[in-house]
């Protein structure tokens, strides 16, 4: 800043070669400055809002489309596939073995996705490399039992209406952190409207404070 000030002070006194000549055009310069300001502002503002999120996240498609609504309709609940094991740990995304309780290497439906699943995974006995939207980093310990059973929480509180979707949206991975976009949320400002919009540590702490009267200790959620 001091350099700018020095230059500005220089101007009226010994503005030598260009200061005097350009005198009459001062107003125009200011106008041009405003235009540049506005232009740059707009470009940066808009790209910050529109382009930046696109650059920040890389999009990855799931191995094939999964229709949650269809499965919920057939099976009736979330817990058949995403269940708590007897030891209280959470099964997470079902493995191939679970799927094969109903599916065989003969596609059950007409869609291409069914065919991909049957041919590439069931027939070859290969696990589907699903990309997990709600995946937390390795340092996080999360007990589904504590939240669902002890806390009586609904799946939707954190996972939203994923059970009602008929198509798998692309998985967006943050290029800097490597985390799923769902952790920060769709809104690039991190503003949340619903409880499931963001799953950062502060969100856990807010809910804990509200429900338990205490934000908790490090080891409650970390390992």
């Amino acid at each position, binding site marked *: 800043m001091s350099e700018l000030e020095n230059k500005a002070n220089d101007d009226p006194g010994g503005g030598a070669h260009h200061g005097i000549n350009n005198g009459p055009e001062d107003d125009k310069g200011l106008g041009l400055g405003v235009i540049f300001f506005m232009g740059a502002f707009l470009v940066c503002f808009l790209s910050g809002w529109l382009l930046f999120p696109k650059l920040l996240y890389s999009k990855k498609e799931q191995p094939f489309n999964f229709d949650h609504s269809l499965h919920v309709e057939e099976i009736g609940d979330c817990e058949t596939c995403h269940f708590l094991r007897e030891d*209280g740990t959470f099964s997470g995304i079902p493995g191939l073995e679970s799927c094969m309780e109903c599916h065989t290497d003969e596609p059950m439906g007409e869609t291409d996705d069914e065919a991909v699943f049957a041919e590439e995974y069931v027939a070859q006995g290969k696990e589907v490399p699903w990309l997990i939207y709600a995946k937390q980093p*390795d340092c996080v*310990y999360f007990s589904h039992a504590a939240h669902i059973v002890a806390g009586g929480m609904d799946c939707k509180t954190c996972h939203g209406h994923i059970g009602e979707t008929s198509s798998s949206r692309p998985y967006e991975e943050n290029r800097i952190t490597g985390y799923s976009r769902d952790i920060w949320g769709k809104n690039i400002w991190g503003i949340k409207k619903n409880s499931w919009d963001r799953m950062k540590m502060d969100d856990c702490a807010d809910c804990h404070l509200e429900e*338990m*009267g205490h934000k908790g200790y490090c*080891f409650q959620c970390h*390992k």
Partner: protein
Amino acid sequence: MIENKKVHKFGMVIDLDKCTGCGACMVSCMSENNVPFKEDESNKKDSITWMRVYKLTNGKSFPETEIVYLPRPCQHCGGIGDHGHSPCVSVCPATATDYGYDTGIVSQIYTRCFGCRYCMGACPYHARYFNWWDPKWPEGMEKYLSPNVSPRMRGVVEKCSFCYHRYQLAREQAIVEDREIEEMEYQTACTTACPAGAIVFGDLNNPAHKVHQIVKPDPHPDPMNHKVVGKSRNPKVFRLLERLGTNPKVYYMSEREWVRKAGDNYLKGEWENVKTHHGASSSHG
């Protein structure tokens, strides 16, 4: 609500007369907690062993010599007055270590730690270790790592967690079965491994637990030193550097006086005063 729940205070008592120095606790800890190893571990200053077995001797010549092995995990200090201000927790500028008021366990969060090592300087027990290098496993060996404990990286401090993940796992089981955790459901890896049965682990607050019965902790501050809380009322039980008021949750036990005396540095004549002084009798509580 955390406040409404029964507050645990997990701790252990190690019988130094039973410990044979076999090292099973150290290896059980290392394999339970993804502790790495280097090609040369003979420089013990940079060798990471959450549980370390020290060797003490009475200094007499053979065959009068006696040695005692002293296993030293993190002492999970409650700090002065047992208010949770452990020496390490108090100095951490990053809140990478905190005191769990519901368990009495001192945590260490690797992603949060930035490696200033203040906690190592503050710890009177050398229970904290710094990762001077990235951990490296020989090709393929990373396949045995456990998902319940995060592997560390260079530049962070690590230490014993009383196998907190085992508490988490036991708690999940208890939750789905709608009951409290049983004493034997949450045991640290060193405790279960000890072939001599020298380590007893449990809730110091729970009179039904063996650790409580052996230690008989005095709930009141020591009248001679108000910093000290939870002093054992068992004359054979002591804590390391007890008078500092760090209030560790690891107690030691020995029939031998020289061993109990080795738990602190005493000035001439000081021990004579201390050795007969134990926690107040239970009539106070």
